[in-house]
């Protein structure tokens, strides 16, 4: 709690630090006794403080909800402005996957993935082709409507 260029404030901060140390080192009995001496009811005060805390929890929850709603709104806006994905020709995708499998220069992992092409669903094929394109193993083909 230092205060640049204000020795009076710094002196008060040092006094506050010492008094806070005293409070933290005092026993529970001393703290309660002093609280009562000042006319306070510790139980009632605890209930009030708990209510203040619950209010803070509600404020924090509302803030998080508002942030989540704002993030969702940004996502929705981005989705609306994104051009629609062109339909993928699944037959062409399967043909290209078979071509990958037949390519002797393709990495072993790719040929293994492509080996069971006939057992894969259309969704699996599309996902696999997207992975392959991402790896740069075969260039995206506009006719497929892939990325």
């Amino acid at each position, binding site marked *: *709690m*230092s*205060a*640049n*260029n*204000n020795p*009076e*404030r710094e*002196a*008060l901060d*040092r*006094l*506050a630090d*010492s*008094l*806070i140390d*005293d*409070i*933290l080192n*005092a026993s*529970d*009995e*001393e*703290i*309660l006794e*002093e*609280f009562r*001496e*000042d*006319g*306070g009811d*510790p*139980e009632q*005060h*605890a209930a009030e*403080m*708990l209510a*203040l*805390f619950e*209010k*803070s*929890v509600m*404020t*924090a929850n509302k*803030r*998080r909800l508002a942030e989540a709603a704002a993030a969702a709104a940004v996502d929705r806006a981005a989705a609306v402005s994104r051009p629609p994905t062109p339909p993928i020709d699944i037959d062409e995708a399967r043909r290209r996957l078979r071509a990958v499998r037949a390519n002797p220069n393709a990495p072993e992992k790719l040929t293994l993935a492509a080996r069971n092409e006939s057992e894969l669903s259309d969704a699996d094929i599309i996902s696999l082709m997207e992975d392959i394109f991402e790896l740069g193993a075969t260039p995206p083909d506009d006719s497929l409507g892939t990325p």
Partner: protein
Amino acid sequence: MSSQAAIAVLSRDEIQLAIRSLTSAQWARLKAVAKRFAFGRPIDPNDLLQEAFLRAIDSRQCPADVDVVMFLVGIMRSVVSGEAEKARNRPTVVMSAVVDEQGEPVDYPDPSPSVEEDLIDKENAMLIRRSVLALFDDDPDARVIVEGDMDGWSADELRTYTGLDKTAYDSKRKLIRRRLNKTYPEGWKP
């Protein structure tokens, strides 16, 4: 793995549970600390506590081995310190002789703290210091202890200087705390 990554921290739910489980003595202790932090500053102790709660459940990490009261006290210290820093660096708009293309004067933020605010804070702090010391005019040992605290003396130095043994010294510190609480139950009022 760094040593920091290995430190276990309480989850948000665990922090909330720990705060909800505070005893009336712990709540009273927290309020007493908040009052001391807020003393002589333009901040209400309850507002300070509420800000500490918000930061505790929203943005701060509480190591599992740290007492939640100490955790909240640390946050309050950081809030007060941050507010003081902000006040010192608050930019103010100043008029300048510079004009824009239309011939209108251009105002720009002054990066230095307001001289007027600085002066007010200094005068206020001086007044509080004098008033607090005057509270102990009738008790030279207590006054020496308060003055020593303000000047950063250690407990050992103060005990040696006053010649008080540990019990008498502790009792004098309690007297100082109680007199301040009684005189300024709602914090500093000029």
